[in-house]
């Protein structure tokens, strides 16, 4: 089997195994954990498309998350639109904002820390606007009424949400697989590694990066819409605050950027960690985040290529022991 086909088989296996979890257990705690880990995977994988494969470090991915969330909520509340119909609107809205910010940034050749800071600034502008205008509910936020039924994209059990977000994650994994194996992904990585060289062989870096940010933002928008359906509430701080942006990039980088499974690993490891510490020290405010931050720093110092990089190192060691076999 070729490497690409093996990855596809891996994604299929992942989908089946995780999809079966609700059939094996009815434990709300377990289902909730898996659902939230998948949700974290989704935003990490979304960030990975632009940051990992495109080399563009966004610090404001909340911009797209929040837009998806608000479109989802406003379409239902003000437009009376069905939640399933609102979902593609949310995705499209987020993608549009992504294209807008990308067009501005890439048109002027922003990269590195400047791109990181400008995305952060855009997220702040949107946060302040969302606080100040009426149709977002201002400081009060928006509450989507609870009407549990599959037709409303609201489920009585976590299992339903788990399957929905699993479908989104699998789609994101397939897109990532395509980035690793398809022509567009090759262009994107060429632009990441050396823009001038890529241009010299006929690649248009602006259009490639623009497509990547649109794609990345679309998945963030899906995550935002999903968030609204699960928690039935959104406000400016949740939508556009820095927490989501940080969560997305940390999980992707800790897991391993520009890889297929890195963001999955990162999201699961970080979620396990914060759940574990919260259970251990639940009463003390902040201590779980102290441990989270410490582990983050330790990982950066000792695993500069992320958790997936650790797996890679182990495999290289293994291969060396096998007499330098490579696959």
């Amino acid at each position: 089997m070729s490497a690409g086909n093996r990855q596809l088989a891996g994604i299929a296996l992942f989908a089946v195994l995780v999809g079966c979890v609700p059939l094996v257990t009815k434990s709300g705690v377990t289902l909730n954990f898996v659902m939230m880990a998948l949700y974290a995977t989704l935003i990490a994988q979304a960030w990975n498309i632009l940051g990992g494969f495109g080399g563009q470090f966004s610090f404001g991915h909340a911009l797209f998350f929040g837009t998806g969330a608000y479109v989802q909520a406003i379409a239902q509340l003000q437009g009376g639109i069905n939640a399933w119909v609102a979902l593609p609107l949310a995705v499209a809205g987020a993608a549009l904002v992504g294209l807008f910010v990308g067009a501005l940034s890439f048109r002027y050749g922003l990269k590195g820390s400047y791109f990181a800071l400008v995305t952060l600034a855009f997220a702040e502008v949107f946060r302040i606007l969302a606080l100040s205008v009426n149709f977002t509910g201002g400081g009060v936020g928006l509450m989507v009424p609870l009407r549990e039924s599959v037709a409303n994209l609201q489920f009585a059990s976590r299992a339903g949400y788990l399957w929905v977000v699993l479908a989104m994650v699998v789609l994101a994994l397939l897109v990532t697989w395509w980035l690793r194996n398809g022509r567009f992904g090759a262009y994107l990585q060429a632009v990441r590694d050396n823009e001038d060289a890529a241009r010299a062989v006929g690649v248009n870096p602006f259009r490639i990066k623009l497509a990547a940010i649109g794609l990345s933002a679309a998945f963030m928008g899906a995550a935002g819409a999903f968030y609204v359906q699960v928690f039935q509430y959104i406000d400016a701080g949740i939508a556009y605050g820095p927490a989501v942006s940080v969560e997305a990039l940390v999980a992707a980088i800790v897991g391993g950027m520009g890889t297929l499974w890195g963001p999955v690993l990162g999201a699961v490891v970080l979620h396990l960690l914060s759940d574990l510490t919260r259970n251990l020290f639940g009463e003390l405010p902040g201590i779980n985040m102290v441990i989270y931050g410490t582990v983050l720093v330790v990982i950066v110092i000792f695993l500069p290529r992320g958790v997936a990089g650790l797996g890679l190192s182990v495999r290289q060691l293994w291969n060396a022991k096998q007499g330098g076999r490579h696959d």
Partner: protein
Amino acid sequence: MFDFGILFPSVLNGLTTGAVYALIALGLTLIYGVLHIINFAHGASLMLALYAVYFLKERLGIDPYLALPIVVLGMFALGYALQRSVINRAGHGKDENILLATLGIAIVMENLALLFFKSDTRNIDTAYSLSTVAIGPAMIAVPKLVAFAGALVVSGILFWIMGRTDLGRAIRAVAKEKEGAKLMGIDVDHVYAMSFGIGLACLGAAACFLLPAYYVNPQVGGGFVLVAFTIVVLGGMGSFVGALIGGLLVGVVESLGGLYLGESLGQIGIFAIFIGVVLFRPQGMFGAKA
């Protein structure tokens, strides 16, 4: 709309706020200019300095202005140690690793503060906290006036260090040509740590000038981070004159924005400047063209 009696106090107020912003941004621009890293722990470090000032006053009765040497030295030591023990090791030659490391440090600092000091917002009472002086038609709070003067003095000291001392020359050499500096016998790791230390020392000074008229809670740094980055970018990354003038400018913009757009929308002006500068003049007002 352009009533002098309203505009003048607003501009003056903005200048005094802007001076403290400049102080915070000077530290950030030094760290960026030399180490070429984006220090996301800058806001959290400021928060720690504010708590230091607070507890020195509440527990030991030391006036914030008298606490200045203690807090500045303490922050310098913290910065030196952080750079040597954590940030330097986290780099591995990749910017994103340093970015993650400073982010991790910020998360740890903020939540340690939450753990030990709770989420309460605290402020201090001094004899001069509420006193004001009249300048023309404007009533300016005394602590803000002191902060303005203090920020100018501290920037002056910083200019002197950078321009006239061996350390300053070493810092500039490392910032410009790291390998060359190493060949000339400069201890690059030491210079990096000194720069980070001085960057945080500026925050110590800023905290002493801020607290008499401000407050502290574990999240207080967040509000300053993007403002400081705006100033640094506006002034040209690594430019001290730019940071000083940029700081004053941003203070005035925020003050006027608050006056005409209202408290919540006022800050939008800052981010609008930021985005505009980054897009159209990324080298800033005083930065060399890249």
